[in-house]
């Protein structure tokens, strides 16, 4: 199969008067890893829930594997795999029973189930744990089992909603390895994340989403290159005046004033530009205290396009966590 596995046109979704998804359009190509990168509350989960037919579509059009999400929900469901944000394994069933159950509810034959379970246990390195109860697995293993479960029916596309949230960096990097392996086997992957490095390391293409809108879409390299070749962080005795000077220079693409430093995007090779810049600023009687040069990262891309860091999202997350705790007490 070639072409687009997911096609979304002018999708909108509101909760009451709040627009969670605001006129979104995008496509996901066959065989790629496509990421939605954005803070919590940006509308990522809503889009995933609509595409997996868990939420009714309000406005716009969406097709998954060629099926209309609004009219052919059963066919859509048959052709996708889902890994939910929250762990949802049956802890009282073994690793292989969890997979067996999934195969059964998707009407796979006994022979198919047996073969697929063997393949998947091998893929996620849980062959030795097949008869272990799910509750006895580590967090990373549980997540891998959920991955395997999502792949049980050989879906055309696997949806992952924040697949590595709450994991330490080693576990996360291991998950990425498995996801790359799954991609190599030809499964299209759609994932949402608020981890910059996850989107950066894993995805063929990334859409940055904020306040229900797609801000920009492209490969990690494309997005970074759009920002310019290099990035300079400057700390001076008078940031405001220095910014003015920098903005007047042709080689400078943009200047952002942070609390302490200036972020300067350079369109040309920084090795030639930096001496000029320093000379110019010093010439105006401003002292330069620190200079730091780096290549633009996904963080820079995100800040550039949304005008804010992802930190806000993290704060939201903490608040939500506290609210949940409050309720359960």
């Amino acid at each position: 199969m070639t072409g687009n596995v997911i096609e979304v046109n002018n999708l909108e979704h509101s909760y009451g008067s709040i627009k969670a998804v605001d006129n979104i359009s995008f496509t996901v190509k066959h065989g790629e890893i496509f990421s939605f990168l954005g803070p919590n509350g940006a509308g990522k989960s809503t889009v995933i829930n609509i595409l997996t037919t868990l939420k009714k579509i309000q406005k716009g059009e969406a097709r998954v594997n060629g099926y209309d999400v609004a009219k052919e929900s059963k066919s859509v469901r048959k052709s996708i795999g889902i890994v939910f944000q929250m762990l949802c394994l049956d802890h009282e069933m073994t690793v292989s029973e969890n997979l067996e159950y999934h195969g059964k509810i998707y009407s796979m034959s006994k022979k198919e189930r047996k073969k697929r379970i063997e393949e998947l246990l091998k893929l996620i390195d849980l062959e030795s744990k097949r008869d272990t109860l799910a509750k006895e697995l580590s967090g990373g293993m549980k997540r891998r089992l959920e991955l395997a479960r999502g792949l049980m029916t050989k879906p055309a596309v696997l949806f992952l909603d924040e697949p590595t949230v709450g994991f330490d960096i080693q576990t996360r990097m291991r998950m990425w390895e498995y996801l790359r392996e799954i991609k190599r086997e030809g499964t299209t992957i759609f994932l949402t994340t608020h981890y910059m490095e996850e989107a950066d390391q894993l995805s063929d293409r990334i859409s940055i989403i904020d306040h229900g809108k797609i801000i920009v879409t492209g490969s990690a390299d494309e997005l970074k290159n759009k920002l310019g070749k290099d990035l300079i962080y400057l700390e001076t005795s008078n940031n405001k005046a220095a910014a003015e000077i920098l903005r007047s220079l042709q080689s400078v693409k943009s200047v952002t004033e942070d609390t302490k430093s200036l972020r300067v995007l350079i369109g040309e090779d920084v090795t030639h530009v930096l001496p000029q810049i320093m000379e110019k600023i010093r010439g105006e009687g401003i002292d330069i205290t620190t200079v730091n040069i780096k290549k633009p990262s996904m963080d820079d891309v995100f800040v550039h396009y949304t005008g804010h860091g992802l930190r806000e999202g993290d704060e939201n997350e903490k608040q939500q966590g506290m609210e949940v705790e409050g309720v359960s007490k």
Partner: protein
Amino acid sequence: MNFEFRAIYWREMLKFFRFKSVLFSSLIQPVMWLAFFGLAMSDSFDQLTSLIPNVSGAPVVDYLSYMGAGIIAMDVLFSSLFGGTTLMFDKKFSLLRETLASPVPRFHIILGIGLSAVTKAFIQTFIIIGFGKFIGMDFFKGYTLAETITAVMGIMILVATFTLGFLFLSGSIAITIENPEGMQSILTLLSMPLFFVSNALYPIDSFPPFLKFLSMFNPLTLLADGIRYFALGTNFSVMGNHYIYTTANISFYFLGLIFFALSMLSIAMWRFNKVNI
């Protein structure tokens, strides 16, 4: 044809046999009822009622056998009424997400859980009949083999219909309610009138007219009387009360239970189609 409900059934039964404590208590509970409550009550009731002359001339049935039918009804009532709780926990721990996100029709989820409850109810019914016979319950007295088989089949159909009805009811509550405490209190509240305004443990002939009227439509009464029709015969006397069951009676019990089960099914479907994940 879709058979997805079998997957749901498979999982329920797997877990029924896995949780040894649940398995053990659900098997031992009916035996305890019969052994302690049944023997104690039947001795004192029989002593009290032995002085009442049997005017009807119908064969006399002892209280233990009369109550045995009620114990089946009661035991099945409690296990099916609390049987839906599994759904509430599945929803709470988001286990239900996987199933609800799959192509399985929601009716199959209810049906699968319903059928697993019926299986458990059959096991309990057979334990009570088996143990009851062992301690001297007069079920199927004087029946031929063919008559016994027919009677057992009849009881199984009644028990199955009754169980489905109450499981659908408890499933609807479980899927609607958020916390275990709320579920517990609703079920306890429900089981009280069901249990006492019925003839499961004692005859309703001397009830006040209003309660007597209500109890006639209580599914528990329908089941207990239905079991008595099959297990004790159509004409007997117990504690001075003369019982005659006609074909019209047994048809009423069957139809009443079927009506009950179908009504509960429609409520369950309504609640299930509203579930959001």
